[in-house]
């Protein structure tokens, strides 16, 4: 997981550059906390939270509304564009759980899949 952490450190440090374009999507969840749990092959996990319009490391004592769970392999595939978020969800490589119901959340799946598709489109234009 060490190299995932290094990648994440770099991504978090450059998020300010993308913030103006990403703001409408990030602000969808303003006031709410969702956690992304990246699970390594060794079982170690990294927790990220989207809060206050920025993505940060989470401590684990938050009360998130949704928990996104993904393996490090899939996390890298999504970052590299080898797998779309929609594919990852369909193939059960990524799960989005509503913590209130303990079940998958279709609305959240659709929101994030659309957001990622639009962000990818933006990044293609920017890079």
């Amino acid at each position, binding site marked *: 997981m060490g190299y995932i952490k290094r990648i994440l450190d770099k991504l978090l440090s450059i998020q300010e550059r993308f913030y103006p374009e990403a703001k409408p999507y990030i602000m969808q969840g303003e006031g709410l906390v969702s956690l992304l749990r990246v699970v390594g092959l060794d079982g170690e996990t990294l927790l990220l939270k989207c809060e206050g319009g920025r993505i940060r490391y989470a401590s684990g004592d938050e009360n998130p509304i949704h928990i996104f769970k993904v393996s490090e392999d899939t996390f890298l595939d999504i970052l590299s564009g080898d797998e779309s978020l929609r594919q990852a969800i369909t193939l059960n490589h990524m799960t989005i759980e509503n913590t209130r*119901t303990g079940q998958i959340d279709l609305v959240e799946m659709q929101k994030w899949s659309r957001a990622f598709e639009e962000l990818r489109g933006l990044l293609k234009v920017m890079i």
Partner: protein
Amino acid sequence: MKKVAVLSGKGGVGKTTMAASLAKALVSRGFKTGFLDSDLTGPNALDIFGGGELVVVDDCFEPSDLAGLRYVSIAQIVSRDEPVLWSGEDFKSAAVQLLERTRWDVEYLVVDFPPGTGAEPQVLLPMMDYAVIVTIPSHLSESNVRRTINMCREHGIPILGLVKNMVGLSCPKCGTLITVFPEDHSFGEYGIPTLAEFPLDPQVAKEKLINDFPIDRFLEAMDHPVVLKRRRIRRSLLKSLRNLLKGG
């Protein structure tokens, strides 16, 4: 909102075509109508209606609109060419969410069920008001259709009638009806009326819809005394159950 399940125990009998034709016929009669494709592992209603955008508004799905028909399919959420590899519990939950987290705003909701009596039918059927059963005159279809009829009876869902599909082949040259399947199951012991019979028709295969779906017979079936009685019994049972759960 009256929720009508279109189902059959057997795959490939034309459920989606019938459900879509029924929905379009309701729209053409001026009813506000919705269509839910609840076949989560093999959704293909989008092949008929086209792939509209499923928008999220206030944490609910806003159905796509096709000439007045409001429709939702899991195919608008998952990756189109990938298999959906979720657990049975996830399928159940997803089926209920598609139904309950959509702003339908319709008078009729036609629900295209998956084949069989698996996870999604089990969880969705008790939420339906009526059922229409699609069958073909094949002995392979018969036992599956019986299971489906009994599943509806188990849940007290009134069956409006049978739609018999692929009843022969209409010769495109002379119009003669050629028998394809030798059997003809009427399921008479259940006292279920036949709403319609359709032969195999290349025109339907091309247009993906039946333009002359007998909507009058469908609407009349809703007012049939047996159907009304079953509805009353079911409502009464549900009311008693609710009171019981409230401790009343």
